[in-house]
């Protein structure tokens, strides 16, 4: 029987984990190992993926992946959140004072300590699982502007900062990972950073409410033999729910300093910093790196790892990889480490024999045997040091909320309602109001500057450059800023609260049909508001393939800046069916987006979307500091672009609009370089039915900002747009709308694409979308003509 066949509410024991390669390794790293109990909590509203409870946390898995996991001993219920056991005096009040290790504690591991010369810069790697509060700790340590969220994989970028009040330090925030296997780019980045950049110390943060799974990474980090401290985060939550952790006992067993903290409440941070600096300065390496037991299955794994350690010792030294880490990874079947060690053929053969012997004796394959060895050690240490809390109020709250937010019949209506509310507040209430305020501010500044420049008798051309070029151009793009800030305010609340992970869970099946995973839904939805924040939001996607594909598809979601154009043409040409025209354009945009996605899937983005093995974190209240830092980050990024790329672009467009080919200032805009260029381009639109230079000019200025299309047409048509009815037929007007819907996004959006993917992809978007827009518009024109429309 496979996991796929399990019914909701049933619990079973895993007997084997099928599949191959890095995905299978990832299952094992997440604790999906033979012998472990797993309960099916629920299915996503569309029947796929499934939500499982394993090792006390919620994990999502697609049905296709679940089919590869065999189970037996199926029963109803079981695998519940542990109930609290009586806490004795010994559990809560140890006579031994903390710290035990490091920072002047009662004992130190000093055997191989080689203190660094004073003045050496202490560099730290901050590593931990996703959703363990790592970035919150980073913010507390450095005060740096780093965003934190519950959406797994949010820390795609690496960021670093100096520890506050410790000037000669540098902490690097590494991506949230579950192990050091080469499953994802994040795991590879972390592994390479620690092995190659050689930080002086590691700060490993773990979620104390889910300590079993978190310690899996801790053990691998300890194998790297770098001075390390363990920060037990969310200890306040553990305490509040009646749990406890014997910190000194855990220190003694692990051989590294263990410090209980609450990153969100800034508790224990000073002690953590003192310990980290102490172990890094004195280079006190972990007192233990050997986690295999000679008693476990007659020491099959133990003997194998130690034999490999002897076999590869010289190669590991030459490759500068800690020998214990290298041996465990070889035993696990890590090809990259094998390649780096450059073993000789005899040694490779010997290695194969050692592993085969271990597999036979242990009764598990190599990867499962190593994962089992690690989880056995974790079980042993947890049973000796951890008093499990009762079911936390956060978990109870999450279960209640999930009944509605991921319920079979309520999930999608709630998602539509929440996103609708966010859009309404952004684009109809708050954003509009703030944008209006900013517009008035920019208008006031423009008037004052214009008056001042006139009073000082500035040259009219230079004045036009400043007022009509820079102020109008940069000002119009800056008016997007309130939308971006308001939208990201709501999105960061949704993300930090844990809702975005649920959205991905709910929408995964739908998005998979076009080759994406559920996580891509959010950036694409934001694209309906504005492409710029949509592209920016794609950064939260963990897979490079999905991220690129999402960015390229987001511009097909018609942004709100196109609404004035659609409204103007619909009112002029289709007064009785304006709403229908608007809706048909939105639907067409989505359909073309889906077609392009299929095309991408078959050509440049072949392969499957990333597997959906994801943790569903508990819902939590978002921190004001984190939301504030994110907003500042996004606003700063946008303003920087407004005053660089967009500033230059506005000046170029102004020059083209103002001068003729002999660089004389034009009195009639028909003679400007822009009009001449538009005239050159105009024949291209002949087959589409609008080969007029005025429309081509409006399309060119639409590249600056889509709103400019209407204003340019108004200026070129002498202050009124009714003349359009004489220039275009209803069919050619609709074809023009189709072209505007699909052609290149505005310069702000292109600049975002360039920032995320580089120039090559930005040019690809501009050229590709223009071609697609022309082809589709031509198709619509032909279809309309054949159907007899005029």
């Amino acid at each position, binding site marked *: 029987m496979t996991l796929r066949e399990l019914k909701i509410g049933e619990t079973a024991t895993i007997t084997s984990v099928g599949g191959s390669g890095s995905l299978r390794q990832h299952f094992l790293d997440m604790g999906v190992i033979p012998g472990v109990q797993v309960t099916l909590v629920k299915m996503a509203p569309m029947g796929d993926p499934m939500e499982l409870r394993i090792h006390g946390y919620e994990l999502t898995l697609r049905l296709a992946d679940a089919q590869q996991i065999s189970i037996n001993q199926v029963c109803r219920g079981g695998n519940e959140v542990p109930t609290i056991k009586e806490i004795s005096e010994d559990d809560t009040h140890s006579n031994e004072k903390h710290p035990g290790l490091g920072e002047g504690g009662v004992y130190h591991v000093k055997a191989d300590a080689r203190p660094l010369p004073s003045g050496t810069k202490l560099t730290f790697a901050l590593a931990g699982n996703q959703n363990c509060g790592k970035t919150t700790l980073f913010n507390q340590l450095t005060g*740096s502007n780093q965003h934190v969220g519950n959406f797994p994989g949010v820390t795609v*970028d*690496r*960021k*670093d*900062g100096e520890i506050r009040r410790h000037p000669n330090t540098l902490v690097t925030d590494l991506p949230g990972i579950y192990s050091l296997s080469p499953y994802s780019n994040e795991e590879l980045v972390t592994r390479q950073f620690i092995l190659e950049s050689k930080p002086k110390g590691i700060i490993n943060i773990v979620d104390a409410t889910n300590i079993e799974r978190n310690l899996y990474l801790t053990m691998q980090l300890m194998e790297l033999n770098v001075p390390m401290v363990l920060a037990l985060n969310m200890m306040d939550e553990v305490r509040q729910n009646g749990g406890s952790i014997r910190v000194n006992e855990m220190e003694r067993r692990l051989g590294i300093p263990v410090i209980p903290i609450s990153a969100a409440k800034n508790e224990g941070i000073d002690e953590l910093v003192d310990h980290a600096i102490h172990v890094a300065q004195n280079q006190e390496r972990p007192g233990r790196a050997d986690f295999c037991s000679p008693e476990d299955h007659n020491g099959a794994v133990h003997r194998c790892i130690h034999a490999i350690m002897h076999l590869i010792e010289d190669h590991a030294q030459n490759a500068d990889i800690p020998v214990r880490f290298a041996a465990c990874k070889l035993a696990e079947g890590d090809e990259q480490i094998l390649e780096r060690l450059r073993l000789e053929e005899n040694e490779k053969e010997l290695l194969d024999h050692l592993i085969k012997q271990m597999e036979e004796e242990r009764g598990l394959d190599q990867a499962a045997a190593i994962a089992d060895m690690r989880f056995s050690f974790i079980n042993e240490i947890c049973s000796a040091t951890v008093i499990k809390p009762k079911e936390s109020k956060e978990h109870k709250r999450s279960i209640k909320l999930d009944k509605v937010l991921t319920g079979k019949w309520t999930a999608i209506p709630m998602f539509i309602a929440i996103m609708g509310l966010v859009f309404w507040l952004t684009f109809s209430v708050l954003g509009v109001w703030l944008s209006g305020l900013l517009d008035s501010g920019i208008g006031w500044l423009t008037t004052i500057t214009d008056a001042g*420049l006139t009073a*000082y*008798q*500035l*040259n009219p051309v*230079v004045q036009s*450059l*400043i007022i009509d070029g*820079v102020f109008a151009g940069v000002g119009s793009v800056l008016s997007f800023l309130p939308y971006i800030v308001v939208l990201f305010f709501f999105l960061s609340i949704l993300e930090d609260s844990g809702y975005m992970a649920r959205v991905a869970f709910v929408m995964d099946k739908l998005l998979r049909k076009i080759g994406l995973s559920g996580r891509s839904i959010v950036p694409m939805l934001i694209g309906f508001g504005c492409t710029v924040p949509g592209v920016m939001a794609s950064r939260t996607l963990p897979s490079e393939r999905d991220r690129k594909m999402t960015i390229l598809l987001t511009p097909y979601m018609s942004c709100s800046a196109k609404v004035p154009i659609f409204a103007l043409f619909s009112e002029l040409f289709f007064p009785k069916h304006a709403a229908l025209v608007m809706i048909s354009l939105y639907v067409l945009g989505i359909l073309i987006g889906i077609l392009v996605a299929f095309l991408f899937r078959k050509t440049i983005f072949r392969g499957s979307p990333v597997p959906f093995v994801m943790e569903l974190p508990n819902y939590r209240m978002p921190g004001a500091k984190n939301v504030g830092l994110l907003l500042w980050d996004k606003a700063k990024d946008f303003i*920087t672009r407004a*005053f*660089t*790329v967009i*500033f*230059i672009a506005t*000046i170029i467009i102004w020059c083209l609009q103002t001068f003729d080919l002999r660089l004389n200032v034009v009195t009639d805009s028909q003679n400007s370089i822009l009009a001449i260029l538009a005239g050159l381009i105009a024949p291209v639109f002949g087959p589409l039915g609008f080969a007029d230079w005025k429309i081509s000019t409006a399309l060119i200025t639409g590249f600056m900002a889509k709103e400019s299309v209407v204003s340019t047409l108004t200026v070129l048509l002498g202050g009124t747009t009714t003349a359009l009815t004489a220039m275009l037929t209803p069919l050619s007007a609709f074809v023009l709308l189709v072209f505007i819907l699909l052609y290149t996004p505005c310069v702000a959006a292109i600049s975002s694409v360039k920032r995320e993917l*580089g120039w090559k992809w930005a040019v690809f978007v501009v050229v590709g979308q223009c071609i697609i827009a022309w082809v589709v518009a031509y198709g619509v024109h032909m279809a309309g003509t054949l159907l007899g429309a005029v």
Partner: protein
Amino acid sequence: MNLFSIIVLIVLCVSVFFALRAIFVKKKGRCGGNCAGCPLSDTCSKKDQQPEV
């Protein structure tokens, strides 16, 4: 064109220069690598950055 116009024009030209520089000039960070596209470039202190040779 009066002196004021020339000063304003010079200020504009300088702004354009810095905007172009921000877009195109690649810098080396303290790591020795290229700052262009590096997620650390925001946090890399400016005094340590050197123009690419």
